[in-house]
């Protein structure tokens, strides 16, 4: 298998096959490298974790003492507060280790256990330095060398990838619960028109309720 095939998980691109209208670009943007889960299972990042799914991606490492545990805690909290019915069904969370040299699957598992994060839909991944860096660059690049080389700059920011829609979104996990949930909701696959209109009517109702209660619109 050629390097590129490994990377994109697709046949080599030629002028004739590179661009199929309406096909998600995600497959060519997201590495398909091999990673290991906290249960020591080998997975392909794109094929097994992303393809056809709505996935939140975060970076962490097991012996991190600053914001990785906080971010994990926050996600556990959100899981129990609101996300549980969706997790593992149509919403997934992937934590990728920033320090693959230190984090073997066992280390990830004990981190997850310590934070009560062995939950449905949750995966912790470790791989090789090359693949982790590639992933980090693809998701969290700022076109600024000082930031892009500093791996600590990426925790706490969550990418939400919606592969069928072909877009990725981001959210700050330390924002208010409502805001993080809004961001996750914003990345949901598009609904049918009738449902969109129904949502719109519900929103209007909430705005009207706010105005009746406070005199101004409290929700955003």
């Amino acid at each position, binding site marked *: 298998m050629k390097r590129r095939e490994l990377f994109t998980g697709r046949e080599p*691109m030629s002028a004739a*096959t*590179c*661009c*199929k*209208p*309406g*096909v*998600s*670009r995600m497959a*060519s*943007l997201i590495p398909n490298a091999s990673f290991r889960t906290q249960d020591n299972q080998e997975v392909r990042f794109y094929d097994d974790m992303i393809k056809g799914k709505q996935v939140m991606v975060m970076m962490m490492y097991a012996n991190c003492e*600053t*914001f990785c545990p906080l971010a994990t805690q926050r996600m556990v909290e959100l899981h129990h507060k609101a996300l549980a019915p969706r997790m593992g069904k149509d919403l997934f969370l992937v934590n990728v280790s920033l320090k693959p040299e230190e984090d073997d699957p066992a280390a990830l598992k004990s981190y997850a256990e310590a934070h009560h994060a062995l939950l449905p839909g949750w995966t912790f991944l470790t791989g090789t330095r090359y693949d982790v860096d590639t992933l980090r660059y693809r998701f969290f*690049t*700022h*076109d*600024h060398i*000082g*930031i892009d080389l500093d791996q*600590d*700059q*990426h*925790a*706490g*920011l969550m990418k939400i990838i919606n592969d069928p829609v*072909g*877009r990725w*979104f*981001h959210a*700050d996990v330390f*924002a*208010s619960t*409502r*805001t993080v949930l*809004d*961001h996750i909701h914003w990345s949901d696959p*598009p*609904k049918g*028109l*009738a449902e*969109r*209109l129904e*949502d*719109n*009517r519900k*929103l*209007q*109702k909430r*705005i*009207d*309720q706010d*105005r*009746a209660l*406070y*005199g*101004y*619109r409290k*929700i*955003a």
Partner: protein
Amino acid sequence: MSQSELRGEQRAAENTPETDDAPSLTIDRRTLVKGGVIAGAAAVITSKKTAVFAQSLGPPPGVAPPAMCTEEPANSPATTPFVDTLPIPLPGIPTLLSPIPTKAANTGAGEAARDDHQRWDEFRPLIFYHSIAAPSLHQFHRDLSPTYLWTFNGRYPAQTFLGIYGLPALVRFRNSLPIDHPVPAIPQLTVHLHNGHTPSESDGFAGDFFDSGLWKDNHYPNVYAGVDDFGGIGDPREAMRSFWYHDHRAEFTAPDNYFGLNGQYILYDSKDPGHELPTPGSLRLPGYYGVTDIPLQLHAILFCPTANGRTEAFFDGVPAVDKWIINGKIQPKLTVRRRKYRFRVLNTGPAKEWNISLIGSDGQQKPFTVVATDGNFVQNPFVISNRTLLIPVATRFDIIIDFSQFNAGTSVYLREAAAQFVGVATPDPAPGLPIGNVVMRFDVVNREFSFPADTPPIPSTLIQMPNPIVPDDSFQWNFTRDGDPVRFRINGQVFDHNRVDHAVLKGSSEEWVLANDVIAGAWTHPVHIHFEEGRIMSRTHTNRDAAGNILSVDNVPLLPEELGRRDVYRIPSQDRLTIRLRFRDFVGRYLIHCHNMAHEDNFMMVRWDIVDSVAELTRKRREIDERRMLAGLPPQYGEGAKKGRLV
């Protein structure tokens, strides 16, 4: 039954499917089609409705979805300079709207949820426009195949709305963008009129976006600021002339603008009436839209040819753009008569800053006069003849070029300091002017008898700047890239559409300090404040040694373009700007953000509210401080902070 439920019922009753033009959106498409076949007589109406549905559910017929490039090309295809004529955006065409716009959101007919229009009865709209966001193909150059864009009413550049102060307008923005498409933009819309004196619910708040298939009425009262103080349509000294409108969807402002969702908006009054005749009070600047008063919209794109015979605009965060676009064309030409022309220059972003100058065919820089900054007339027009004019993202400059200084038959070039990729070997059009730096060419000819005669010389004083306002309070905004984790932050926090970060009382005024004190990175932020124009009082620059210790704080003399009123403030690293603003006439949620759209999409944005009552102000300010305390940040108003005016 609560009041709001009652209102909802009422609204539903007002929009029953039986009424002529309110389409029943609860009936699904199949039923509609079926109904059309059976009902016979109703078939015409039904098929019309079906067409609207079809548009909102997929790409409209005729515009095949793009075949995006998967890898960033090294450079765009080659293009021959000066083959296309500079296009002039069409003026918006007023129309009638159905269903008729209402004060409360007409959600039953598919209008996006919003607050009621403020001061609706006072400024009831008289002119209506319909602007439909939908995909279309646009050819950026003769040598390039068409490019898939998202446009308003199928045109790029979009229509320019021409309005008159005192004549309230309403634009119905309909979202007909396709849901299924591979463009990295998002088919959700919230249109901001930059920098209109616009009530909050029509201001395009970043979190107020609406989905494909819905529409929203943006109410533009077209009044001067100061309605409460001056009555009527406000204080004429607050007039702004050149605005622009663009999508403001949180996280996706950069791609949505890159793919074409923006346009210009011009307001006239007796001082600047849109003609050149000697009417009372008129400054008689070049003023015939499209003839002697021409918008110049600057954009930059990286193109890549695709397998299906199209040239797509590549976007991947911040692409390495290498084609300079002006009014939707690469290196166009424009025939001009030997007289004065006004150009309304606008940088539509997403991130490139422009440094423009005018170069004659002898290679020498030629003068042009700046008459307005960010749409506000400057007191004394100033000439750019020995430096470039720096145009940060979203900034507008109205400039006047007097082509009578050139001989007929010669050419003049608009130069950008950074070179673009041309790819076709072309000799330097003028000595010392490489072809890559040329944005467009003006071909000077003699004025025909039928062409409007030149306008009088530009007055040396356009307006009398009033004395700076006396602020009631002061406040500081810190634009940083720090914290834990490191992020673009304003006052220590990233954007959260649900969180207010500053509340001000309607009718009050404040002095704001905009500070960019980040030591590392040397970031420059073109900061934009919605709703009100500000006056720059001073600019300081902090000199630091390598360790970050402050060596000195220098006062930086203001440039002529900073003396007028502005709504975009460029703040290079280590600079601080002091500005004064007033908050008048409308209340609600507004934004401050870095208009480098990549920064903005990375949450370098804050929400601030204008409130109606002291009670609401007190409540919101208390909430802000409580929330800051929880986040481990110092309070802004209470103890430990500078005492606010009312709290």
